[in-house]
């Protein structure tokens, strides 16, 4: 029994096409519905503004010491209290945020660039090139990263630029794998063959055709890498290997706060809260992006 419905005029009229919806548009709509992701995105914007713009409005600088204000709890004068050197915690928090977020974004960008290029090349060229490239990735993947970052920091000194590079150099591997996987499946699709048949150079194909289509998973993973990087930076700072005083990141502030937590709990709680909230938001946003872009898991 074969069902061959014939469309009457009525039904054709009824099924008028909806306005063209690209993948991104669809994804955006889905993302907007995800309350957690929206919350995350909003919180991130607020926190970023706070850290970027805040210091201009603050009457204090982050290194300004005032021993009369030794370790005061949050008050009207110092909204987030002061530390042992009388420095205003709120301003320090803003500056710390700049550093933490900055490191997070820069290191992620480093790993993004390396990973995407590497993965795209491996996926595109395939064959022996791919096998060799991925073998290298496998070997590097098996190394204990944190140990190496620690070593790198010790060996090359604790300059902040180095921090970006060290962390970024270590996080690119998974990005490369993801990109390679995407490129491999894209490559098999016909529009790439068409492009090749038209005589487009391989470089052009990679840059103009493959990479835009890979952006989805890359965007998701980037959003999820930033918190991982921030954690790593905080971890290093906690061990004393990251950012050096008088500069402070949230990681160093947490470290200092942890030492004094018995008497002056706000020194730990407030930076910890900001840090966790930022990680939370990034994770929710990343999850939301992943759900929004993954057509298969659509719940409608």
């Amino acid at each position, binding site marked *: *029994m*074969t*069902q*061959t*419905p*014939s*469309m*009457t005029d009525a039904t054709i009229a009824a099924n008028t096409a909806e306005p063209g919806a690209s993948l991104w548009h669809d994804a955006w709509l889905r993302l907007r519905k995800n309350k957690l992701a929206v919350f995350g995105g909003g919180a991130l914007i607020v926190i970023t503004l706070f850290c970027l713009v805040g210091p201009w409005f603050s009457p204090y600088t982050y290194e300004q010491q005032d021993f009369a204000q030794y370790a005061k709890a949050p008050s009207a004068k110092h909204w987030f209290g002061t530390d042992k050197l009388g420095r205003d915690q709120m301003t320090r928090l803003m500056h710390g945020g700049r550093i933490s977020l900055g490191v997070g974004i820069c290191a992620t960008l480093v790993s993004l660039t390396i990973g995407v290029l590497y993965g795209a090349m491996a996926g595109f060229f395939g064959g022996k090139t791919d096998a060799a490239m991925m073998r290298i990735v496998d070997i590097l993947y098996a190394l204990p990263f944190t140990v190496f970052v620690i070593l790198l920091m010790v060996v090359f000194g604790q300059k902040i630029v180095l921090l970006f590079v060290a962390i970024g150099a270590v996080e690119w591997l998974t990005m490369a794998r993801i990109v390679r996987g995407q490129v491999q499946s894209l490559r098999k699709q016909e529009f790439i063959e068409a492009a090749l048949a038209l005589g487009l150079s391989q470089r052009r194909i990679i840059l103009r055709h493959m990479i835009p289509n890979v952006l989805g998973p890359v965007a998701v993973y980037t959003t999820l890498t930033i918190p991982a990087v921030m954690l790593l930076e905080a971890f290093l700072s906690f061990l004393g290997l990251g950012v050096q005083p008088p500069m402070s990141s949230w990681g160093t502030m947490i470290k200092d706060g942890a030492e004094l937590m018995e008497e002056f709990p706000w020194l730990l709680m407030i930076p910890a809260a900001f840090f966790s909230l930022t990680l939370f938001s990034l994770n929710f946003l990343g999850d939301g992006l992943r759900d929004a872009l993954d057509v298969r898991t659509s719940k*409608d």
Partner: protein
Amino acid sequence: MPLLEVKNLRTYFHTRNGVVRAVDGVSFEIEKGQTLGIVGESGSGKSVTCYSMLGLIPQPPGRIESGEAIFDGVDLLKAKPAELRQIRGKRIAMIFQDPMTSLNPYMRVEDQLIEPLLIHQKIERKRAVELGVQALQDVGIQDAANRIRSYPHEFSGGMRQRVMIAMALITKPDLLIADEPTTALDVTVQAQIIELVKRMQAERGMAVIWISHDLGVVAGLCQRVNVMYAGRVVESGPTASIFRTPQHPYNRALQKSIPALQPKGAELYTIAGMPPDVSKPFVGCPFAPRCEFAQEVCRGPVELKPGDSGQATACVRVQNGELKL
């Protein structure tokens, strides 16, 4: 006393887009050892009917709104879960459409195959395995003693379906429900599976409900056929009558649509319109919008009524003699 008697089954799905009336007042009976075919297109409610009886409908969003399904004295729809589990797999067995996804890829065939025995009978594993090997042999799998240790993906499609059948029949159930078991298989393999089920049915005197959208398959196997449309049974009767003397416009249209039976070179007959959206309520006969014989009276109450020669139809006009097909 019929083996299974379904009365007025209604299963609705409460979704965000409305209430989907997947099964909307279905009644039928099947006797011991009888074969019944349920045909209908996708969305006609044929599978949901049987899943409802066995409690395989996810209860939110699905809900059995009303009806009875009396199997050997027990109303399956009102039975407690533990009671139902005693019947499922032991007295009523089910096989599904895609054997690759319906078998557990992480378990050896042996473990899955003997599971119904281990669940429903007090039996030693060793003995269960022996029965399992025999079951595989019965369905025509060579070298059963060795192959039983394999994993499902090591079998071909047709073989996997045989394994499913062996698994379903291992507890010697009274009723086998087959939900489109040959749809995913090649034509030649289809024929083999149908023959196999026929043979087992004859050997064991087991009743079979065969769900399909393929009239041809049902014709070869079943004694009686129910034709479903939009969640209801629109015609029911002995197979030969259903084919030769359709008593419902939908059934008649289906018969006319079979490509092999149409004159060569002529345009293929198609049924105008689209199947109804069962999430939107309607009155009267669900087929009316597409029926060439529809009249005012078709908007009134519609019910499946037995006619002569054991055939029942839900077409009001046929029932009151107005329409002769």
